[in-house]
């Protein structure tokens, strides 16, 4: 697929636009509104980056597991979709600097005996397809079930299926608040989330990183984080 | 007469929607009688036969089988049907069963006869209808005449007291009619009570004890073959006979 080349060597699908992909099924990071547009933390970050680069932000909804493929094949210029940086993905796409810090957490039903990763041995763990949590889970058990979205996995857990779900702690916490019968257990580790870009577009990567730096410094990222989570998750935890 | 009344029908009526098909039918059939029902197409012959076997439900009137009035709502019709065998124009053999299986099906499943006894009986019946060599054959391999003889054997296997035949030879090629009529004649000679709807005037004249002529849902005339064919009383009957003989 042919993209339009800009003066600085970066390439965009449409030279005035920054088309960024998100799933829309990862509340509160991304979710859809009544007019089928999306809102959420990821969306506002994506829009802020676009504006910082002087481009018109255009959101694009792709199922989570199709996003990397979509960025690779040029259906979007980038993805601002809570992708965790990991070496596997790095072979196929480029990552920006992290724009927030989170971590996979174990979720179970309230009455579960599972507390820590050690307890997962031989248990059935559900995760979202295309997420890094499958890798995480596979370190502790070989019974892994995959769904298209984290929420569906949590819903299955809540309705009595599987033994645990590994997902982002913020997402899990939100579901818990929404009345799912689940409970957060161990925070497995910390992870860094970043913007995903195609590998053959180093100039664009550079511009995105510059913009993120700018947004970090002028407090925009912090401001967006507070708005959605009441805390700042964009600072690297000590 | 002192013979037993096998079937007695009183003031039987039957309609399909607006169509009044049977109108105040009265009829008695005594033991060992052979009654031939004749009449033009649509006159109600099949419907009458089917009412006797309760495949059709009467509107009103009485049907008394071997002295017991039958009430279709409360009586066990299947028990009564065991007494009354029926042979259809289209044979209605079970195509997924062999000749033997066709015959033993009902005795085993309905009467609870045990399988060996049923088979012995079936083989006797097959011999009687001249088909002892066909017991393991499927119906599709039989000629029409053979099929109808199997159907007769199948009905006889339930040891009925009465046999009803609805145009048993109408679906047959002319050269196959004879073998079926012969079987029926044998049956009549053994004393079976029979009601036969037929267009075979030769058979009616030779075998029937009584001829009943129906027209437009009513019984117009009845009599011995001699009376009926040679001295018909009604104008309608004469017309019918002329038309039939001309063919």
């Amino acid at each position, binding site marked *: *697929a042919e993209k339009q080349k800009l003066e600085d060597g970066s390439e965009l*699908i449409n030279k005035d636009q920054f088309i960024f992909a998100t799933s829309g099924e990862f509340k509160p990071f991304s979710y859809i509104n009544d*007019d*089928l547009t999306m809102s959420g933390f990821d969306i506002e970050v994506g829009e802020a980056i676009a504006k910082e680069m002087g481009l018109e932000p255009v959101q694009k909804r792709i199922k989570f597991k*199709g996003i990397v493929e979509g960025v690779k094949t040029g259906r979007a210029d980038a993805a601002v979709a809570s992708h965790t940086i990991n070496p596997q993905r790095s072979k196929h796409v480029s990552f920006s600097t992290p724009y927030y810090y989170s971590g996979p957490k174990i979720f179970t039903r309230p009455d579960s005996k599972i507390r820590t990763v050690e307890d997962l041995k031989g248990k059935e763990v559900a995760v979202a397809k295309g997420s890094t949590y499958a890798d995480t889970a596979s370190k502790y058990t070989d019974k892994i079930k995959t769904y298209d979205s984290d929420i569906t996995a949590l*819903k299955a857990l809540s309705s009595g299926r599987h033994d645990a779900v590994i997902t982002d702690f913020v997402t899990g916490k939100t579901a818990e608040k929404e009345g799912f019968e689940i409970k957060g257990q161990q925070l497995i580790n910390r992870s860094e989330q970043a913007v995903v870009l195609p590998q053959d577009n180093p100039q664009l990567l550079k511009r995105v990183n510059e913009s993120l730096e700018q947004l970090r410094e002028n407090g925009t990222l912090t401001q967006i984080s507070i708005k959605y989570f009441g805390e700042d998750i964009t600072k690297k935890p000590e | 007469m002192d013979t037993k009344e096998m079937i007695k029908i009183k003031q039987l009526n039957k309609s399909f929607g607006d169509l009044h098909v049977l109108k105040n039918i009265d009829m008695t059939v005594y033991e060992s009688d052979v009654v031939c029902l004749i009449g033009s197409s649509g006159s109600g012959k099949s419907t009458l036969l089917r009412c006797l076997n309760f495949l059709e439900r009467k509107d009103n009137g009485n049907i008394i089988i071997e002295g017991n009035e039958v009430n279709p709502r409360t009586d066990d019709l299947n028990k009564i049907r065991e007494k009354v065998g029926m042979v259809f124009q289209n044979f209605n053999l079970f195509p997924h069963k062999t000749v033997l299986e066709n015959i033993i099906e009902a005795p085993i499943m309905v009467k609870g006869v045990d399988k060996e006894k049923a088979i012995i009986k079936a083989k006797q019946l097959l011999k009687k209808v001249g088909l002892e060599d066909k017991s393991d054959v499927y119906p599709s391999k039989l000629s029409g005449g053979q099929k109808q003889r199997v159907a007769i054997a199948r009905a006889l296997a339930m040891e009925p007291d009465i046999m009803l035949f609805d145009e048993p030879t109408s679906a047959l090629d002319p050269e196959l009619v004879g073998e079926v009529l012969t079987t029926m004649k044998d049956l009549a000679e053994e004393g079976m009570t029979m009601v036969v709807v037929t267009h075979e005037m030769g058979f009616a004249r030779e075998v029937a004890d009584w001829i009943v002529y129906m027209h437009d849902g009513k019984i117009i005339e009845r009599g011995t073959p001699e009376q009926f064919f040679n001295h018909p009383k009604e104008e309608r009957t004469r017309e019918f006979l002329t038309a039939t003989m001309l063919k």
Partner: protein
Amino acid sequence: MPSFSHFFHILMDTKGVFFKAMLLTLELTVVSILIGIVIGLVFALLKISNIKILELISDIYVYLVRGTPLIVQIFILYFGISGIFLLPDFWAASLALALHNGAYISEILRGAIQSVDKGQFEAGRSLGMTKTLTLRRIILPQAFRRALPPLGNQFIISLKDSSLAAFISMNELFNVATTLGSNNFDEMTYLLIVAVYYLLLVALMTFVVNRTEQKLTVSDR
């Protein structure tokens, strides 16, 4: 199971979004059927061309489509097409569905063409018409008429199949339902709502198809 009042409340609340999504579902269906008819016609003609290699091509196409699940086809075509040239999403999804429909429609049309009496073809030829002209003016109009009922049926199938376009990010009914469902942590209610939309659409289409069929029968010549 959600309570009825909850269900009804959300049904009313979301009618705007779902109406938009329904339009997209209909667009996808109509476009994919129309393109599918063109594709189907081409492959039906290949199949009856009496040229071995063309028949083979048509056979292989039909075999591949009938031999694999639609969802696999949609994914392959969506990513496969993207690898070659970048169609807008809507067209990529429509094309994927159309290629699927095309195989079934080609079978429908081939059957309809072959059901037209051979004498019609000979009558055309005997009047000096070329093969193509006879096909175009005499055979195809009759074939299409016969194909209408099964095409209507295919339309309804396709309406339901378009739900799988959800997985290639079309905001059609099913996608909107699952997304809203997961946004609101209430999948069941939204699924039931979308089921109602599909039932209505299918009932409507069935009605239209039956009416058309009846009309054709009445005015049948």
